[in-house]
């Protein structure tokens, strides 16, 4: 575990958001009066070692910290009883992608023990269900991601598929707990504010 993530640091990370300040809203602009920003996705996992391996080795994430949570406030916020054991790891996505500095939202991995949590399931026969959360990721090397997914024995829902113009390749996998991830490789362009699908 990294020394620079003491409990206080972890608390700060847990509470951390990326953006909050309100840009000035003009008089005639409608609500919202509030500004909210998504700072992190935290996945509830069954086996934190398997998940760490999946995201670091499989997708190239960097491990920022991995700690046992003892702070009662944090447990309360997560809705787990104080006698449960909680382990929490934080991952950050790569900084450089195609020569540009990119920093996505952080990923958190949380494992609750004593006893372990029940598992969320899709109805029998369904690979997609409402209420589930998917991630759309962008990579610089989809061949390598694909090879590692196979090596890690990840469930592959869609083999790498090229777009009609051949410029984009998309791969769909499940993480070790069945969270759906769409991994895309595409030529460089602004992605931060680009909608998912381009209408024809």
């Amino acid at each position, binding site marked *: 575990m990294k020394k620079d993530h003491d409990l206080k640091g972890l608390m700060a990370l847990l509470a951390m958001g990326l953006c909050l300040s309100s840009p000035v809203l003009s008089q005639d602009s409608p609500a919202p009066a509030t500004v*909210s*920003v998504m700072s992190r996705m935290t996945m509830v996992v069954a086996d934190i070692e398997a998940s760490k391996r999946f995201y670091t080795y499989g997708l190239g994430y960097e491990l920022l910290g991995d700690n046992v949570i003892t702070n009662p406030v944090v447990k309360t916020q997560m809705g787990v009883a104080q006698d449960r054991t909680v382990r929490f790891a934080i991952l950050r996505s790569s900084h450089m*992608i195609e020569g540009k500095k990119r920093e996505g*939202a952080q990923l958190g991995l949380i494992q*609750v023990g004593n006893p372990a949590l029940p598992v969320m399931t899709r109805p029998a026969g369904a690979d997609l269900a409402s209420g589930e*959360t998917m991630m759309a990721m962008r990579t610089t090397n989809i061949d390598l991601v694909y090879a590692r997914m196979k090596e890690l024995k990840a469930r592959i829902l869609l083999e790498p598929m090229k777009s009609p113009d051949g410029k984009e390749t998309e791969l769909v996998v499940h993480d070790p707990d069945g969270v759906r991830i769409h991994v895309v490789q595409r030529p460089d362009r602004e992605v931060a504010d680009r909608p998912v*699908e381009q209408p024809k």
Partner: protein
Amino acid sequence: MKTILASLVLALGLASPLQAQNPETILPRNLLLVSDLEASKKFYAYALGLEITRDAPIADKITFKHLGIAETHTAHIVVLRPSPTLNGLPRESAMLALLQVSNPPLPKIQRPANLAVGEVALALRTNDIETVIKRLKEIGATFAVEPVRTPDGLIEMAVLDPDGVRMQINQRPDSEREKAARK
């Protein structure tokens, strides 16, 4: 101890030149499969204050293939953008998209408890939690943990979105690190 060692080895491994051989991946977007788009829009755009940048049916059939659903379905997407700045500092964070598949609708995921393996909890930070709380109550959202105020100025709560996705929402003063970064 073994675990700690393994973590250290992993961390060192990532910092080594071998990193060049790792794929570089970022997360530009998180998608929620929703059962009632209007209810979800109220939750995310009205109550939480995220900006809608796109609200349209998906015409691109390749997306249906990616999702593994039949082309006879209809799908509608709403893209929500977080604020691009934090206290005057430019920030990059993931976009949030709501996706509703209809005709017929998708089955619902089975969540056996308030917290379950396989779920993804979102963490949000806001500049006006009082308004967020007021609006969440107005639209009848479920509070998993009522707002808690700590002595150091943090206000935090946990709410469930209309499909039961857990959301950690807080408002807090800037950290020292953030204050330093503004200078």
